[in-house]
């Protein structure tokens, strides 16, 4: 198998995730797009671990998985709090901090 297969698939997933982050207005959908981006990075790490034969890439991928779980927990708690206060999770309405 070629390295570019994995790397191009990861690049495609990453770009789709970036599009989702830019285009989506719903906060939960933006969090899902961030998950796409994190998984793309993990695919790269695993591909490079296979290429070099060292397992460090797999260790990093496991760290990323754990951090992503923590990020989703905190992110969804924040979304819930925003929803409770405003009855909406549209991100373009959250403009109080704009200067």
């Amino acid at each position, binding site marked *: 198998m070629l390295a570019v297969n994995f790397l191009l*698939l990861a690049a495609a997933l990453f770009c789709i995730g970036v599009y989702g982050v830019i285009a989506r207005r719903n906060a939960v959908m933006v969090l899902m797009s961030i*998950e796409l981006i994190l*998984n793309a990075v993990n695919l790269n790490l695993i*591909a490079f671990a296979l290429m070099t034969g060292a397992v460090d890439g797999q260790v990093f991928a*496991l760290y990323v998985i754990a951090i992503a*779980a923590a990020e989703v*927990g905190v992110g969804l708690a924040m979304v819930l709090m925003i929803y409770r206060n405003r009855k909406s999770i549209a991100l373009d309405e959250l403009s109080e901090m704009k200067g």
Partner: protein
Amino acid sequence: MNALILAADDISVAQNVGFGIIAALMIFAALSVVSSKNVVHAALWLVVVLAGVAAQYILAAAEFVAVSQVLVYIGAVMVLFLFGIMLTRAQIGKEPGLNNTGWALGIPVAVVLFGLLAWVIIDQFGDDVLPDRGPTPTVLLSDQFLSIYIIPFFALAFVLLAAAIGAIVLARKD
């Protein structure tokens, strides 16, 4: 650019075919995640993407990471997402206003970014063949975790604890 020609004749064809099928399914599912009009459907398409990533890990000889992916992402994170969706909206079904007004701006950004990334990747790794390795022994992973990566491991445990406490504090009613 001879990567595509090499892909057929080089090593195990079955591996390449499996990779291609799973990759096409993953791309389609990822596009559905970012374009679906229904939040619940988007979450279920995300399950397809995450399962595809786990399958690719197995193809890349990373079994332990694949199992962790299934446990953590498909098991835990998706349940969190479904709870988040259920707790933040009332109706099931199509929902207007999921996209920003300037959503079309994302398309050129993503296309240009992919073009740049693909150019760099093909330029740098165009001919590199991934070696055929057997499954990674989990002993190797645990040796790494408990020797040179022990400090990040403890830091990670602390981050998870802080995130759990933070999520509870944020989501509490009073």
